[in-house]
């Protein structure tokens, strides 16, 4: 125990002495937490719409104004041909083109042709945006359609037809704010990055400057040495996380709905796991540059496969397996559960168990692979 005390004293002194790095550790995550959710806004709005109206009738105009009034679409302009609209899509000036055929009003209202078609072309390079944009437009047209029927069909004239009304309700985020979704995830990523990179570079740095030799000839126990490295970053991770939580509360008004203690409990174990992973990489590499690159490689996989941007449910089976082996995916999920859904201890218990396993395995491996003797 005494040895650990001295190791800790040393590590903390070194951390606090390097003011530039310390400031970076504290300030960078906060700046990122402020900017990233603003940038990472996938809320679909401002879809640029080009209209080719061959009909020029009151009904077609009404349809267009209904669409633009929805708030999702921004009228980019009117065009005389679809060719022109396609050109704009090609130049990325427009995302979606709507063609209203001539005779739209006549067919629909006066002649009561059964089906009156509208033609819509969507720039689908960005699949999400295209999918949602198309869906929004369809549902607006559906509503408009309903509206016309109400207007023209006198209740007596038709047989009553059964209708099913779908009543949607959005739990945990009724206003569908995208930031609610992103902020907990970004917090998770920042924590992972700070912990992972710092610990990965640390032992390697001692290797590079040679001080590790001096440590290796002392009777220090391997697990003491690793613990001495682990604890300071663990404390730092907690500080960064708490700061992040404060920032998301002050700026985005996002405050954990669930059990805060459960969240910290999970964070504590998670930090152990991610720091263990960093130390593990540290024991396998010889230079800081190598450690950096290898960590970068894994970070990329962890973050992309962590369910931050895309849902893990939609992944193919092999990718689901990979994401089960990814500690970050559990963190992202737990953060969203506790912060947004108000989950508590019992809800996160399985995740906590898995994370304990990760922490034990990674740290065990790191201790095993840290050799005092070559």
């Amino acid at each position, binding site marked *: 125990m005494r040895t650990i005390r001295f190791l800790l004293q040393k590590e903390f002194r070194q951390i606090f002495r390097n003011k530039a790095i310390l400031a970076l550790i504290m300030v960078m995550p906060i700046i990122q937490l402020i900017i990233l959710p603003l940038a990472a806004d996938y809320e679909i709005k401002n879809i640029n719409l080009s209209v080719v109206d061959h009909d020029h009738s009151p009904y077609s105009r009404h349809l267009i104004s209904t669409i633009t009034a929805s708030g999702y679409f921004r009228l980019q302009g009117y065009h005389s041909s679809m060719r022109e609209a396609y050109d704009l899509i090609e130049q990325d000036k427009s995302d979606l083109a709507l063609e209203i055929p001539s005779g739209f009003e006549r067919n629909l209202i006066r002649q009561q042709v059964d089906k009156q078609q509208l033609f819509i072309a969507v720039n689908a390079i960005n699949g999400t945006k295209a999918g949602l944009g198309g869906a929004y437009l369809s549902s607006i047209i559906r509503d408009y359609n309903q509206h016309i029927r109400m207007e023209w069909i006198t209740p007596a004239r038709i047989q009553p037809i059964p209708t099913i009304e779908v009543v949607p309700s959005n739990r945990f985020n009724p206003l569908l704010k995208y930031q609610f979704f992103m902020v907990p995830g970004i917090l998770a990523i920042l924590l992972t990055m700070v912990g992972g990179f710092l610990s990965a570079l640390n032992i390697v740095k001692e290797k590079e400057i040679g001080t590790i030799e001096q440590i290796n000839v002392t*009777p220090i126990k391997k697990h003491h040495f690793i613990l001495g490295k682990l604890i300071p970053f663990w404390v730092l991770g907690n500080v960064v996380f708490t700061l992040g939580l404060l920032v998301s509360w002050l700026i985005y008004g996002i405050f954990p709905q669930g059990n805060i203690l459960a969240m910290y409990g999970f964070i504590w174990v998670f930090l152990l796991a991610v720091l263990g992973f960093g130390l593990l990489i540290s024991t396998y590499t010889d230079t800081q540059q190598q450690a950096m690159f290898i960590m970068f490689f894994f970070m990329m996989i962890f973050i992309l496969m962590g369910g931050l941007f895309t849902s893990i449910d939609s992944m193919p089976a092999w990718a689901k397996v990979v994401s089960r082996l990814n500690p970050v995916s559990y963190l992202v999920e737990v953060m969203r559960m506790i912060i947004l859904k108000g989950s508590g201890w019992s809800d996160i218990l399985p995740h906590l168990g898995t994370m304990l396993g990760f922490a034990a395995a990674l740290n065990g491996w790191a201790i095993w692979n840290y050799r005092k003797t070559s």
Partner: protein
Amino acid sequence: MNPQEPVIKTEKLTKRFGDFIAVNEITFEVYKGEIFGFLGANGAGKTTAMRMLCGLSTPSAGHATIAGFDIYRQTEQIKRNIGYMSQKFSLYEDLTVLENIRFFGGIYGLGDRQLKSKSQELIERLGLQAEAKKLVGELPLGWKQKLAFSVSVLHEPSIVFLDEPTGGVDPVTRRQFWALIYEAASNGITVFVTTHYMDEAEYCNRISIMVDGSIEALGTPKQLKSQMNETSMDGVFYQLARGAKRGE
């Protein structure tokens, strides 16, 4: 205590890296309180041999005991009984003088009171009172080396290994450094030192000279000189090292 009691004893100690034999069956003994010079050209295998003796590197073959402990099985006990100062300066440059002393003393298990008195004493002996709270990185090289040595014997080991401790240091500081070494030896600490400076070799009680991984000569400086018919250690070294195939 028997002055002829061996504290380092090696028998055909060997280290191979693949096909390359870095250290080839070296056998020697070092006695308590002795200053043992370990000489050789660059690449002769000195550092590798020393790393094996310190428990930093596992030998490929042969036997050795350090302070009575086996080099294979008892590396942790060995580490309690030795001090080590590497070629590369290896105190923490971003800690102060005092913090470094306390840290290394602490991990060798010195008690709080012991630490306090020892570090006080050490700083006074080195005349570093004014620098005690300065970062080690700000000290001139010579002072750093003296500090590193003092730290390596802080826990009163029975043997201290010094790997080219005076490289790049001015003659005056070297002289002071050797005064520290003598002091340690007179306190019963065995000193095992590698060096390139032949005048330093003359300060040693006994020396060995390694060529291409093997020990080619072993004895007191006087013995070696008379054996080889040379007037200086320079000459002895030159005669032996001339035949070396490895090195620069």
